[in-house]
């Protein structure tokens, strides 16, 4: 299937969306990336990534109703979708398989 591969950055952003079910909007997600990965990330990059994720169907978004905090402007809040979740799990299981293979090799090489 075209477009269902998660890039590394996309996976990161998507994981954060899942991890922060409340207030998962572009600025908050950018801050979380800063905290977790210690790299300074430009907001526009995050915004673009979220847009791409939505186009691929991994997230859905809504404008918050009634929130008037940042100078009266509403935020766009993102939620993971079912295919998004599936994509994440697929990526995770792929990685686990690889790590398992590595562990096997190590075992063999140290013992041999």
């Amino acid at each position: 299937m075209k477009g269902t591969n998660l890039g590394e950055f996309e996976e990161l952003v998507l994981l954060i969306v899942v991890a922060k079910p409340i207030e998962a909007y572009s600025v908050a997600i950018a801050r979380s990336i800063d905290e977790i990965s210690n790299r300074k990330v430009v907001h526009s990059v995050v915004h673009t990534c979220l847009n791409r994720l939505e186009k691929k169907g991994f997230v859905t978004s809504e404008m918050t109703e009634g929130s008037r905090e940042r100078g009266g402007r509403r935020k766009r809040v993102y939620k993971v979708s079912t295919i998004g979740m599936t994509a994440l799990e697929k990526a995770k299981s792929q990685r686990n398989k690889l790590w398992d293979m590595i562990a096997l090799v190590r075992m063999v090489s140290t013992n041999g």
Partner: protein
Amino acid sequence: MHWLEWSLLMDKLNKHSPPKWADIFLEWYCSPHQLEDVQGALYEYFYDRVEAGELKKAKMMYWLDVFTHFRPHIINRKQTHYKQNNLGMYKNFIKLSFRNMKRQKLTSTLNLVGLSIGIASFLMIMVWVNQEKTFDAFHENAENIYRIPNTFKSESEEFTQAVSGPALGAQLHKLFPQITNACRFGNSNVQIKAGNENFFESGLRVVDASYFDMFTWDVTAGSLADFFSNPNSIVLTKSASIKFFGTEDSMGKTLIMDEETSLSVSGIIEDAPSNSQMQFSSFISMDLAKIIRGAEGMDENWGGGQFHTYLQLAPGTDRVSLMAEVNKLITAKLTFFTERNMSYHYFLQPLTSIHLESTARYDFANNGSARNVSIFTNVAYIILLLACINYVNLTTANAIKRAKEVGVKKLIGAHKGQLIIQYLVESVITTILSAILGLGMIYMLLPSFEMLIGYEIVMTLTALNAALIFGGTIVLGLIAGFLPAFAISSFHPLSVLKGQLRSGKKGAAIRKSLVVFQFTATIALIIAIITVNRQMSYLQNQDLGMNTSEIISINYRGLSSVNQNKDVLRNKLLEHPKFKAATFYRNAYPVAGLSNGTVLVENGSGDKVSSSLYHMQVDENYKDTYEIEMAAGRFFSSEFISDIEASVIVNEAAVLTFGWGKPEDAIGKKMGSEPRIRTVIGVVKDFNFEGLHKTVEPLRILPLRNSSNFSSFALKVNLDNVFETFDYLKETWESINPTVPLDYTIMNDDINNQYTSEVRFKSIFSIFSVLSVIIACLGLFGLVTASTNQRIKELGIRKVLGASGSGLVQLISREFLILVIVSLVLAIPLAWYGMEQWLTGFAYRINMDWTFFALAGGIAISISMLTISFQTFKVAYGDPTKTLRHE
């Protein structure tokens, strides 16, 4: 409060704000639906930095942020995430349509009635037209079957006849491989005795066995292959079987034909359907007919014209080259005719085209007219068009009432396109409802329509038909609704809400011209009805050159038993004071059509030319019985014994054709060839022996040589006390000819029957024209209503200021009357041209004069005045205070 206003407020409350120009740039490039989110995020960063105490840095970063967000996905104006609730919108449209229809009851009713009449008329006519165009298309082999009529040329005339010589049907398919099958089809009149009853059977057809292979008929009893395995068989239709035996189940029963031939019923088939030109009630085989008539050599006879001959060709045959070869062959065989300068040229006539396009002589009685079909097709479209115009006019006239609705909708954000769709949905729904009503009308009125036309309409509701009707209805709705939808949705919301809206000069002009169009069409149709009516009466009252009002005609098919007693019969009948004259003859009943034959004639320049002309064989009483006048000479008389062998009488048309000059000069001229030469002893004045459909053609009257050859007779009878007269006739007949059924008709009835197709045309045309008048009046009524409603205030004020009721009526009517008069002026030349074309198709016709147009104009004006006055009176004489309170 809109988020813009709120955020502006908030920004003002915060003491610092991001650089204005950066914002302007952002607001320019960012797509509107993302602006709120993106700008909000940037503002969040900005205020965080400001709170952290870095005002300058915040402002610089803001600029940076704005630039880094200058990316395609933000600039992109495509709204990919919008979910449009279209389905809900359409459901709402449908609901609204019904509500609107209930609110505007008058307009809706007028629209529904007009459209349903239009649709019903259109469908009925088109169904009939379709049937006319597909006569005999139901046969399996219809595509490959052709009839072969021929054009006959002699020195004196040329005409096309539908019948051909017997050899063609018997031999052509053996000689040419492209002809896969052939058959002949002929008429016969016989007497049938079944059980103890006697009948005359005029629906007997003589056919080859291959007839049932070529043509597809529904067999209910017996098998096709065995129909004629026993030559003494007869095949009956269901009705014939019931007529002869009282039951459909008559297989194997016997009947006696013409007092000598015994036949057994070998098959029963369905009655001839109305959409076939071949009408029949029984069949016997060609082989049997050959034996009975002693015509065994018939199959070698290439000339003459006794049967309709049909050929079935292999698909893809080159018809042109085939017929060239056929004609070569036939010309070679017809040396007898060629020597006398007579030729037959045969051509192929596709089976399905015969009904409408054949103009040959000796053709089927129920042939239709291509001209009528096209006339009615045009009428159908006109009626539908009129109904549509009605809809357009009525809806646009009432558009003002909907103005507020449109204004509000536009204000809350409806696109013009959405509004147009809404109004189109309304018109489609109206059309669909009208179509349903129309179909209901057709269902109820179909029997009356069939009676009017004279034969059944076969309406099969195939899936294709249903789809066509449904699709057509929707298309109609779209077309009719397009203009009104456009007009209504163009209202400018502000001016509407302020109440400034007026109908607009342009709109009114379009509506008025549409009304003029409607009325022009209607008035033209009225003129057409008047012309058609006058022409028909003319035809029916035309002097035929003979007395037809007192004649009873009796056809006994020349049965010898009757002929033996003919003088006894004649004398007995004339004893009665009411019976004034009687004449016996053969093939001389002026309504039934005459035979023709060829004869050598010495023409005016002294040459001997062979001519084909009609002939009849009569006794000396013919002239007095039918009250025909002589132009010169004398009629046959028993005083002149030589008459029987040596005399002949012709009519004035013959004198002209042969170039003999004046009638008197014709006396003494000779006709015929040795040994039978006859001299002209008299010339009769032309009388219409072929009805008024044709001008009088040349005629040869012969005396009957052998008294056993008479086949029918006519009585001149005083028809005052009809029943007594008939009783006497029946008694006398039965006493002298007990075994022969008495088959009599009244001549006037027969003559009127000749005009059935014209009479039908007149009735149908009148009905549909009246329908269009009704539709046009509905439209006018609606328009007047709309106009008066608009001007209600104005009229109320005028009344208060002292205008009289009649003055107001005049005011309103005047503008509409002008329209009607303009239509009248336009309609007259149009109708005149059209009717002239129609009238030229008649041998005897009237001329249109100014009275026609005056009458039509008078009718149009009175009808319009009536329609207009309904509304105007109500308004003009109403209470002005009520109207002025109308806000």
